[in-house]
């Protein structure tokens, strides 16, 4: 697997670290126990197209949002994650 970083270009997988599913959204303070439990522990664990966070630690050190197929490892899009490195896009 190789990831095309929007800032650095195509790089080998070893430069990146995986965070996980990009779908769960951290609940607001005061959220119910159910919402927190859901966010921390439950996963869709999709077999197919999924979007996830990767960190380019061996390169530009930006957080990336990667759309990838978990059945084939095929990557269809890589974008800067919102709020993390995204500002560099226009720079």
């Amino acid at each position, binding site marked *: *697997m190789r990831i095309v970083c929007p800032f650095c270009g195509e790089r080998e997988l070893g430069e990146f670290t995986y965070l*996980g599913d990009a779908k769960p959204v951290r609940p607001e303070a005061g959220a119910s126990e159910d919402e927190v439990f859901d966010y*921390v522990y439950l996963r869709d664990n999709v077999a197919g197209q999924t979007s996830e966070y990767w960190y380019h630690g061996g390169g530009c050190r930006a957080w990336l949002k990667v759309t990838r197929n978990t059945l084939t490892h095929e990557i269809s899009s890589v974008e800067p994650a919102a709020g993390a490195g995204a500002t560099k896009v226009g720079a």
Partner: protein
Amino acid sequence: MKYSIFSLARAALSGHKNWQRTWRDATPKDRYDVVIIGGGGHGLATAWFLASEYGIKNVAVLEKGWIGSGNAGRNTTIIRSNYGLPGNTGFYELSMKLWERMEQDLNYNAMVSQRGVINLYHSDAQRDAYARRGNTMRINGIDAELLDLAAVRKMIPFLNFDNARFPVQGGLLQRRGGTARHDAVVWGYAHAASALGVDIIQNCEVTGFVREANGKVTGVETSRGKIGAGKVGMAVAGSSSRVAAMAGLRLPIESHVLQAFVSEAIKPLIPGVMTFGAGHFYVSQSDKGGLVFGGDIDGYNSYAQRGNMPVMEDVCEGGMALMPMIGRVRLLRQWGGIMDMSMDGSPIIDKTPVDGLYLNAGWCYGGFKATPGSGFVFAHLLARDVPHEEAARFRLDRFRTGAMIDEKGQGAQPNLH
């Protein structure tokens, strides 16, 4: 058929041409008391214990491929019971005791080989942690020996003891640990379960659940038609989330790939199973002479059943750090398997919130050693509707209640367990 020295002699005299099939390939009936989804080691062991221990014989095991085509036939075959946390300690020892009598129980040669498992330590802190784990084991009646450097040098003289970064200081040894022939475990359970009347149905994929208006599961939809069931037990290893989703459940599980490696055959070298404590590398030598080894999971969700290069490199570096001379040995094969990684690294054996549906999941990459124990306690749950005492902590709601069994202390981060 029953295996004995006479059956072996008889078969030898007729040129090994008359061996009988060891289990029946059944066609599905309309209804069973218990349907098990998944013909891996865990599903087949569950069926056998249901029949042999709990007297429930109207049982079917449904397997989408062929039996043993999942992780049961893909793992590195290590068995041990050197766990430190309440819940795990007792359960894995129960499993170890069942390994020790498996071949007699099943009348099948599973090549269970108690050649010993040694975890090497490389720092004072690691020694202390291993001493503590060893003490926990011994308090619970499980064998463990803490070896110092001299004892390890005697046992495994070819290690790279002068490694400046990760000097070997000693190891925690469990002599009763070792390896077993993984395919034979599957075939053995199939052989014994089939003889007691269990139907083993291959090429039969479960595609949905049959449910009553109140939600209760009363059967399964399969690629070979509808099959009714008093109870349905899931033992589908890396596919747990996908099968559970058919019943509307989301699980505290992610699917990840783990790779395994086998080298060309060399003369006997590795005495038992060895693990490198400073990185992640474990190795044993098969009876055919190949070095069988592995390390970390690839670290990202996958259902692709194949691995990637960075981990391959990392695993080989671990091996080289420990025994530089294996650098000249050629790699023969590599493959990957998909496993459930649970949020605390420990298994889940429980009723689900869906009436009639039972879950056996989350084995992460240590579930082969659990095969007999898992079958035993899952059969207990299915037969009696209460958890077996050695699996009572493997609850599905432990993440909600905070009663996690986090052997590695990594928190809710499946790719780190």
